[in-house]
């Protein structure tokens, strides 16, 4: 239990640090677009909204830094992230809320798929060291070095423009009615296939190589030889003994790579015009919509933190040693 306590403390600390960094970020930036915006749009903003913006951006110079910090926390805990300039002053939380599910869906599914396929493939390659598997390595190497966005562009060029199999952009067709109808879901899947596929392909290589290396190291261990000598079937040895132990470092590198995955997806959404938080962030940046930018950064960071916690929990459940080790 002590182990979990330590991890919990660590995550709380990181969350606090992320929020605090977010607090300081706009205050470190030069220029003050907020004031200008506020002045220009005097009549359109409610006083509370204007106050919230000032708090978020450190414009309430009447108060000390510490007081600003407290106000900031109070705002956050009440779920107010300010108003978005480029979305007609809609609350930032609402704007993010419409985009977040798309990203989570796309990234979540694609990453999990890629992890599963890559790990399985890596396990197989690590186990059978034949010629075909040796070839797979440079191929995997190549694919993992390709920038996500470029692969997306190529995918569009090939599968969408040339072959016409999949649509090149957006999450669903124009004029389709969002809802939980089969038709709509089908439409979503149709539109989401290409982006998801691209993410899977681009990240596959990394998982495969990592798993292969781990498998090789694990298979050298004596307990594998014992298992084989006991007469267990190769399949059983591979899955329940070797792969299970080789997978542990994969899990921890999964957690570490989450930040990287987020980055890649951001750009992917740009390429495919997919209405997720990535595209939202990029649009906000171009429109200099600071409240939205700041809110997005916070949400993304906390989401990555959450995913880290889940990965850590999975690791602890799978590896009894981790519970005794120091964080």
């Amino acid at each position, binding site marked *: 239990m002590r182990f979990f306590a330590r991890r919990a403390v660590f995550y709380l600390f*990181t969350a606090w640090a992320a929020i605090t960094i977010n607090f300081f970020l706009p205050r470190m930036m030069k220029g003050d677009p907020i004031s200008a915006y506020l002045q220009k749009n005097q009549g359109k903003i409610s006083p509370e909204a204007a106050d919230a913006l000032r708090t978020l951006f450190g414009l309430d110079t009447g108060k000390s830094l510490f007081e600003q910090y407290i106000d900031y926390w109070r705002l956050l805990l009440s779920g107010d992230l300010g108003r978005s300039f480029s979305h007609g002053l809609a609350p930032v939380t609402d704007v993010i809320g419409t985009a977040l599910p798309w990203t989570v869906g796309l990234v979540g599914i694609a990453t999990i798929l890629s992890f599963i396929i890559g790990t399985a493939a890596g396990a197989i390659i690590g186990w059978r060291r034949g010629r075909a598997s*040796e070839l797979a*390595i440079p191929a995997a190497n190549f694919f993992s070095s390709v920038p996500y966005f470029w692969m997306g562009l190529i995918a569009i060029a090939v599968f969408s423009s040339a072959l016409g199999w999949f649509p090149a952009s957006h999450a669903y067709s124009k004029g389709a009615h969002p809802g939980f109808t089969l038709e709509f879901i089908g439409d979503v899947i149709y539109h989401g296939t290409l982006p998801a596929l691209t993410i899977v392909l681009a990240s596959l290589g990394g998982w495969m190589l990592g798993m292969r290396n781990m498998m090789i190291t694990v298979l050298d261990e004596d307990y594998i030889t014992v298992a084989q000598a006991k007469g267990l079937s190769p399949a059983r040895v591979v899955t329940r003994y070797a792969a299970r132990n080789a997978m542990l470092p994969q899990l921890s590198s999964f957690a570490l790579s989450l930040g990287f995955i*987020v980055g890649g997806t951001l750009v992917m959404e740009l390429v495919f015009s997919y209405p997720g938080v990535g595209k939202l962030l990029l649009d906000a940046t171009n429109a200099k919509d600071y409240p939205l930018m700041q809110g997005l950064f916070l949400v993304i960071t906390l989401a990555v933190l959450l995913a880290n916690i889940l990965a850590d929990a999975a690791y602890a459940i799978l590896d009894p040693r981790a519970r005794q080790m120091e964080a």
Partner: protein
Amino acid sequence: MTIPTTTALEASEPEEPRVGISTLQRMGASFAMFRNRKSLTGLIILGVFVLIAVFGDLIAPYGPLDKDYTALKQPPTWQHLLGTTHMGEDIFSQIIYGTRGVLLVGFLAGILATAAAVAVGVASGMVAGWRSEALSALTNVFLVLPGLPLMIIIASQYDDPSLFLIAGVLALTGWAWGARVLRAQTMSLRDRDFVRAARANGEPLWRIITVEMLPNLMAIIASSFVGTVTAAVLGLTTLAFIGIIPITNLNWGTILFWAQQNGAFPDYWWWYVPAGLCIALLGMALALINFGIDEYVNPRLRSEGERARAQRKKGVTATSGVTAVRRTPSSPASSPHDETEASLV
């Protein structure tokens, strides 16, 4: 105590009395990690890119922004090896000049990030108690912060960021991983007997770190450096593609940015394919170098590759630790293995 004492000199290896190895030989020995096939291939590819960057002016037929109005959006011809853009600019030249931007920023970011990683990682590994935990917490925070959003937000603040600034931002998001690995390694080194002996002998701390421990950490530092450069190159090209970095810094990502903006898709493949391929190629070269270092550091992977190759030559397919039993006496004619191995094994 009457014990028959042997006074003969302890048997030392025969041969020539080697008084010492020259510095050059010693340097060569420490770069043994680069000696296997994989990393050599990677180094060669990297070397080619470096040459292109250095001698760009001599190799490129045109300036990157020279416009040839007679050839707009042309597919590759002998005059324009990779075709032209919508403004008649030679893409081949753009790629050549773009190499400079990529390599400069990439390596600069790598150096900055690795320096930070070594400083924080080794320090937090050597000290104990709350200081170590604090540094570790700092590292972990930066690990969790998502890199690209942070880079976007910071980079968008500046209208014309200098190379240093861009490299700095890239380094800021990339140093933490190396620091974490180095911390773990340093902690395990700290308890090794030779470090304890050095401490017991009264070596000052700075000497213990630099002279005794750092050489043993070289492989990890090298690997971390290569990894960071890879991440920096990807980050740079991504940022350029998004349009955050001004086009005054020409790199492969900028080319893709222009391609995207000016409707190069999907028809004008010569515009957007080469740039991406270059990024992939450079990434691959760096990954290969890292592969080589990995194999060197992990003796199991090293002997693994050699063993598998040797066995394949004998016509035996290996699966993990099981010793394959050959039923029939091997005759070269009967085993149909051919010599065409993958070129980049």
